[in-house]
């Protein structure tokens, strides 16, 4: 790990001000992604700005929905009664992620900004268009068994966000509150926060330089209350998703009134499937409907040499998640 200086910022203005003067500095909250990557020499910031004292805290009911401060920890949020009651899928996405130790450390903002687990990105000895733009992508013809099949490009097939929380947030229309270096706040739906790789896989989000995540707000909805997050892994716990599904249904009299679907583990970004939702809405809550939705969700899949299994796996994961919610 490189040497660096350390500053504990007392306010957002101070934190963003430091990054204005020192654009290569990095914010640190839980540190679980940042320090891990610094130990692998993938990041070498000359200064760390500790943002844990910033007042981006609290979990509270607002007129827009449940508002969660970006500095809250995964463990506290995952077991919070308001989240468990109103957004079971979001709660599950947090508690099925990482380990208890990491969940005690990792902040919500940091989770949303976690980086890909693509082995080529994480090994500085390899070319990688995301890490060194223009250097190439060995994953396309290499070890891609855990990489993405939706939204990928000829430059990058990484699942840029490998985690769980943002998948559930994408399903339920969560909105991020961001604060820039001028102290100005803006709201960005999480479905518009991540960028597809295209020809610029190094650009992963719409965050401006030095901009901070302040909070995430999830609008209350019937389909969010009746929801689940199903995660399929190579082992039963403490692993990234090969495929996952965050789904919510509002079923009345056997007919689906509204549906929300997002997939994890298979997309270049958390993969909201409006195609699947369209197939589900207005239809009977039966396995035939769920199968049709799963087919629609994976229609654009572009599997490579080793991740073709993900097409069927993601379809079956989605069908089972929908069955679980419909039967609930």
């Amino acid at each position: 790990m490189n040497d660096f200086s350390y500053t504990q910022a007392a306010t957002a203005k101070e934190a963003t001000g430091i990054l204005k003067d020192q654009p290569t500095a990095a914010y640190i909250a839980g540190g679980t992604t940042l320090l891990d990557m610094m130990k692998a020499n993938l990041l070498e910031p000359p200064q760390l700005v500790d943002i844990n004292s910033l007042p981006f805290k609290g979990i509270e009911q607002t007129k827009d929905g449940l508002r969660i401060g970006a500095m809250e920890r995964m463990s506290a949020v995952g077991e919070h009664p308001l989240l468990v009651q109103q957004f079971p899928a979001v709660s599950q996405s947090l508690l099925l992620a990482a380990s208890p130790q990491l969940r005690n450390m990792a902040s919500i903002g940091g989770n949303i900004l976690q980086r890909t687990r693509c082995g080529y990105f994480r090994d500085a000895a390899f070319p990688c268009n995301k890490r060194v733009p223009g250097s190439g992508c060995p994953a396309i013809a290499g070890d891609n068994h855990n990489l993405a099949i939706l939204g990928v490009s000829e430059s990058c097939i990484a699942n840029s966000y490998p985690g769980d929380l943002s998948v559930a947030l994408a399903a339920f229309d969560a909105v991020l509150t961001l604060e820039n270096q001028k102290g100005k706040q803006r709201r960005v739906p999480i479905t518009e926060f991540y960028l597809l790789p295209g020809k610029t896989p190094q650009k992963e989000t719409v965050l401006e330089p030095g901009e901070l995540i302040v909070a995430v707000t999830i609008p209350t909805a019937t389909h969010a209350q009746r929801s689940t997050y199903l995660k399929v892994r190579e082992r039963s716990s403490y692993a990234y998703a090969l495929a996952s599904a965050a789904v919510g249904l509002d079923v009345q009299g056997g007919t689906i009134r509204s549906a929300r679907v997002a997939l994890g583990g298979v997309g270049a970004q958390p993969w909201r499937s409006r195609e699947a939702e369209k197939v589900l809405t207005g239809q009977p809550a039966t396995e035939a409907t769920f199968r049709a939705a799963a087919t629609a969700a994976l229609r654009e899949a572009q599997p490579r040499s080793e991740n073709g299994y993900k097409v069927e796996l993601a379809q079956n994961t989605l069908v089972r998640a929908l069955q679980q919610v419909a039967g609930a």
Partner: protein
Amino acid sequence: MPADLVTPTDAPQPEDNSRRSFLKLSGGIVGLALAPPLAAQAERLTAYSKTIEGATDLTLRINGQVRTVRAEPRVTLLDALRERLDLTGTKKGCDHGQCGACTVHIDGQRVNSCLTLAVMAQGKEITTIEGLAKGDELHPMQEAFLKHDGFQCGYCTPGQIMSGVACVKEGHAKTDDQAREWMSGNLCRCGAYANILAAVREVAGKA
């Protein structure tokens, strides 16, 4: 290392790290008696907190004792414990937050000390495996690991025990399945899981 890894854009890097060297020179009186070219920058700087550079004396509260360690900001709590404070009970396994061997408690919560900076653990209550026993009287979790033979080589054991103590306290060891799930951040390459589970469940039953 390309700048785009550090910030999400192509923001230009300043020609020097003037703010840092400036802060270092001016210490606690930044903003006073400045040359005109620096005045605008100094206005922002006046509000800044102290920046720590290089080795400084860090004060850590470990197992109820106040300890001082001279270390750079990049020193992890794990390395401070093992290499500087002679508290080698906490183990270094993967050093990347994947194995749990380095588990300690900070303010009562289990964390990976390999991904915790010592400088950021100041002002908090740190408990390591050395802090569990009361003199010769072992903690009930330590007793249970002995009774159930919850180890083979023993390297993961301090982390398992620290995680087990927290797991029971959190109320996450009420069934075998729940305890397995909530102990999953601690790997055991010898495969002593069955006995580790028995130890954790026994202590949970008495809690």
